[in-house]
């Protein structure tokens, strides 16, 4: 087994029961992602892209197939084991930022460390360092509603980074931003990748996906194509 492989998905399917009807969100998907890849998962709405993201992000488990995350079988894990994997190994960045409105920037970034049981002093130090790395060291005591959209997303990225996760999973990270701010955020992802992080973008926008080095297209619950991007966009 190649130790470089972080994510190893083998013949994974996911079905939902919608009343009397069975919905095949994913039919059969196999995918391997290596350390320090920069990959985009693309697809129109209804393609199974979101289901794919939920499974890759360990928010959900497949109905069928195996999913090894750094050689641990995630497919058969219970709620708490999944929570632990998400906490330690996955950094989420969402389209709607998903910050806690009542908490300060610093508290928001500290949150994953709270669940990891990190002591307060270390927690604050690490959260501050993460905010520094996204250029928000002078916004630590602001509430999310006192920040611009781009700043909020950078807080979310700091929160994703703070646990030093194995992958950063970003779901339409620029979907709620104007294009200029979107470019800034994409530049940040580029830097993260250069610093050795593994970045997974989930998007339906070609403009965003072209930053990635590998593009996986999903349609009707299957992988339609899995190609190397010969000339990733630089910003």
């Amino acid at each position, binding site marked *: 087994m190649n130790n470089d492989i972080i994510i190893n998905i083998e013949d994974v399917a996911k079905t939902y029961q919608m009343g009397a009807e069975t919905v095949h969100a994913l039919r059969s998907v196999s995918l391997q992602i290596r350390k320090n890849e920069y990959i985009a998962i693309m697809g129109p709405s209804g393609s199974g892209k979101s289901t794919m993201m939920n499974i890759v992000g360990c928010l959900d488990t497949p109905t069928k197939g195996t999913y090894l995350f750094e050689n641990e079988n995630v497919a058969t894990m219970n709620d708490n084991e999944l*929570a632990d994997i*998400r906490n330690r190994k996955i950094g989420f960045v969402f389209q709607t930022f998903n910050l806690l409105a*009542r908490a300060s920037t610093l508290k928001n970034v500290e949150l994953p460390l709270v669940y990891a049981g990190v002591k307060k002093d270390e927690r604050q130090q690490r959260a501050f360092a993460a905010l520094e790395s996204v250029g928000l060291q002078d916004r630590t005591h602001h509430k999310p509603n006192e920040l611009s959209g781009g700043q909020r997303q950078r807080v979310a990225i700091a929160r994703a980074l703070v646990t030093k996760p194995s992958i950063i999973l970003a779901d339409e990270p620029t979907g709620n931003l104007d294009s200029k701010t979107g470019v800034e955020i994409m530049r940040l992802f580029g830097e993260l990748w250069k610093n050795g992080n593994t970045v997974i973008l989930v998007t339906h926008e070609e403009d965003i996906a072209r930053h990635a080095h590998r593009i996986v297209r999903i349609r009707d619950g299957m992988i339609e194509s899995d190609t190397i991007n010969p000339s990733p966009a630089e910003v």
Partner: protein
Amino acid sequence: MMGISEYFESARIAYQAIIANKTRAFLTSLGIVIGIFFVIMMGWFLDGLDNAFDKTINAIGTDMLYVDKWSWGGSDDWRSVQKRKPISYQQALEASKKMTTAELVAPHASKWGGKITYQGNTLGSVSIVGVTAPFVNTPIGNLKEGRFFSETEDVHSVEVVILGYKVANAFFPDRSPLGEIMRINGRKFLVIGVVNKRGTIITDFIDNQVFIPIQTFMGMFGTARRGVQIAVKAGSQELLDEVREETRVIARQVRNLQPGEEDDFTINESQMFRDEISTLRLYVWGIGIGLTGLSFFVGIIGIMNIMFVSVTERTKEIGIRKALGAKNRSIMWQFLVESSTLCLFGAFIGFLLCATVIFAITSAFPDVDFLTPYVPLHLLFIASIVSIIVGIFAGLIPAYRASRLDPVEALRYE
């Protein structure tokens, strides 16, 4: 194990949630406020009652027996008690001579509704008690000032009086009554002593009496139909059983009872007040527990309801926390801490309310000695524990529901 950091995180969230919705938090915890109020008021009242009870026992004496026609307890059949012949002075004297185990035997007789006059002022409904000289050694005869009369003075029916605390206070609030001449039912008496305050809410009458030599008493009021009581001091509580037994045997002898006949007297003792007190306690408990239970019931429903609202309002937040690695029990814990913090907050308000009411009551009725202006702090401790438990109980179902939310669904919630 739950990390300590997670605990503080939960407490912080709970605190913020309450601060963010002050009015809502207050209204929600009103049931708990009222519940805690009843519990503490009840505890306070019972504490006061217990104190009064202890004082009463001490006043009457824990090693004292009082042989009387009448029963204090009310456990004997009232009709048959009423038919008993009074204990005569001769019988009392005979019994006193025969007793060997008791430290002290003191016959005494009472006249209710006596009238005391001093310089034109009259105090009615005072009990006039005729006693023998050794009565000074009973708890009730305990002197505050002056002296008791001697046996010689008793034999010669001298007109001297020892005042009860209340009587002395009524006529001489700011000076000593010693050496004054007062009229008792028209007859002049020299005040030679004052006894200590002994009365409590239950035995208020003790302070409202005066003591004169029993010979003088019988000269004034006669003996024929008048009952005499015999105070018997055992000397210590250990001796009480032995002395009670001898008292009973001798009382039966002097009353000429045949074997098999029922006692026609009662040996009263301080323990008999326990019956009365325990009944009263039971009532207070019953009412208190009933009201408390009802308020807590309403409180629990209120808190449960608001917790369901809180869980729904924060579905998205729960999704975010779960995505960031919160385990089910962390989410559950968060909401349990919130609901018990809410209850604890109610408990503190209830406690403040109690403290206010207690001080208001005690300053409004300063004379009622068992209403003491003290706030039972141990009850605050109990109230806090109870409210935390109530909070956990009320939050259990909403918290469980929150903890089981699917992170994918919760994140999608808007």
